């Protein structure tokens, strides 16, 4: 890989920079004193950020998004714990089929999920609220939760649970005292992933949120007005900053999980 490899590698690095440049330009326009998103920059301002603080509809959208994301994370993770525990601990007929079916939303286009949910909900006559969005998000987040928790259960030495029972604990207290603390890094991972997916998801929220828009749906609605664009840039800057923070927290928990399990850090995210 020495000769041809390094040229190829330089190409790859350039390509990555090119791809990521737009994300880095967000803050530039967010602090630019002009309603038109264009070079050259005209001056420094924080007014777009101030504008964000005075928009109640945005605040409501953020609140909706957070409620939906937190609920989704908790529900998907609980379902994930049951499914992953069943998948790793018990053998039952049709297991591969059932688990495969649970994994289906991973590969199904979200717009299809959204439309079919919408059709059924309209049929049953359920009102579209944040609750219906949560339903849709749990559907697409559960496969990720299962995948993460599955590997947490797989890396758990079964003799640890047996040892606790051998030392006098019941199955339930063993789960609480041994299993739960040891899969905790997996649970946190699952919560973070589900939370992020739900927070970022647009199309299901768009169809199912009714009159309670989430943040991506709110952003979408603002894009019709060109004058709102700098404020969207400011909002984007804040979201990039929060995302970086989230990644750092996730990495912190991952490292802690490795340290706790006594393992060796093999590097890399996820």
């Amino acid at each position, binding site marked *: 890989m020495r000769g041809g490899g390094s040229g190829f590698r330089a190409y790859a690095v350039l390509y990555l920079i090119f791809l990521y440049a737009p994300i880095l330009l967000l803050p530039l326009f967010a602090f630019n004193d002009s309603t038109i998103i264009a070079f050259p920059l005209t001056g420094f301002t924080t007014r777009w950020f101030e504008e964000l603080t005075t928009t109640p509809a945005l605040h409501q959208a953020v609140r909706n998004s957070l409620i939906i994301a937190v609920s989704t994370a908790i529900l998907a993770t609980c379902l994930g714990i049951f499914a992953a525990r069943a998948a790793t601990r018990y053998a039952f007929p049709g297991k591969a089929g059932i688990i495969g079916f649970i994994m289906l939303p991973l590969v199904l286009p979200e717009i299809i999920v959204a439309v079919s949910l919408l059709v059924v909900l309209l049929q049953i006559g359920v009102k579209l609220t944040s609750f219906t969005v949560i339903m849709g998000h749990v559907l697409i987040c559960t496969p990720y939760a299962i995948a993460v928790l599955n590997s947490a259960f797989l890396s758990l030495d079964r003799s*640890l649970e047996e*040892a606790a*029972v*051998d030392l006098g604990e019941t199955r339930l207290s063993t789960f609480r005292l041994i299993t739960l*603390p040891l899969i905790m890094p997996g649970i946190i991972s699952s919560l973070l992933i589900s939370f992020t997916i739900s927070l970022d998801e647009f199309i299901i929220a768009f169809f199912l949120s009714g009159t309670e828009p989430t943040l991506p749906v709110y952003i979408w609605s603002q894009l019709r007005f060109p004058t709102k664009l700098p404020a969207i840039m400011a909002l984007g800057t804040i979201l990039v900053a929060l995302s970086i923070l989230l990644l750092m927290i996730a990495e912190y928990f991952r490292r802690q999980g490795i340290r706790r399990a*006594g393992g060796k850090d093999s590097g890399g995210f996820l």
Partner: protein
Amino acid sequence: MTLIPEKDPAGTPPAGRPIIELRGVHKYYGDYHALRGISCDIGAGEFFSLLGPSGCGKTTLLRTIAGFEDVSEGEVLIDGRNVDGVPANKRPTNMVFQSYAIFPHLTVEENVGFGLRRDPRPRAEKAAAVAAALEMVGLSGFGKRAAHALSGGQRQRVALARALILKPKVLLLDEPLSALDKKLREQMQSELRKLQRQVGITFILVTHDQEEALIMSDRIAVMFEGVIAQLASPQDLYRRPLTRQVADFIGVMNFLPATVADEGGGQIAVDVAGLGRARIAAEQCPGGVRAGAGSVGFRPETLTILFEGEADRGRVALGTVDEVTYYGDMTYYGVRLDGVGEPLTISMRNLIGRRVLERGERTRVAWDPGALVLFC
């Protein structure tokens, strides 16, 4: 009250009521017959080993006693009480797992004190018990350490302290030393024996290492394919193996084809291939005598190489050195005796001034009919 087959000498279990009684224990996993009628008694205070190759059912039997596996057929009695249906957390047994199963999220102290959670004693008394248990295994001062920071030997000790703090009637050990390197393993073997003598609790050890079983046990049950092939003390097992399979599994044994020529008067006449007729005592055939073809076994240390100037003693055969393996304290020779097909393994101590033979040398080998074991 023992249900051991008649032909099995079974060693001598310690006096008094046995702590574990196994009566015709069978275990099936679907079609697989893992335990095929295990019956034996284990005495209180014994150091008992279950020895056998992997897949022989020894770990299954241990887990049956611990309560992690149900018995398909037969009975397990602990301290005279049938434990059928009694879950692991209600049995007076504790286990040291092969992986040690140290809880990685707890400290050493919390691990050792884990079994005392439901103990009604005041906190200070429990802390004292934990400290005493740690001292017993030589880990005083390690209480506050995180469990995942321990070395292999230290984990082993924490697992022992954690199991012994509950003062079980029986301590079950599932290959507890197999993960340790050789030096540490030898040290822990000696410590485990001392610990067992000190606490007086019955230890049941599962191992595939025959040397480990010989070193540590009062009695050993050798298992093959779900049955106990022989149950005896280490010395009986080594000197009087019941079958060729046991003899081959325990230590090194040279085999030669042999035919029983004559029997009577407490003596058996055997024609050994290449060595001629030997008269042996009845106890040299622990598996029973039958007329016809069989084989005899010699341990490597019962054959002696006669060096230059040493007088013939016992019966002597001539041969050629085929292989020399120098171990420092011992040398193992592979010697091809004239008229015998396979080379025989002979072990000799490296005494001061005694030279090590070289490959290809001719040598005299003394053998003693009193040392051979006959398998019919």
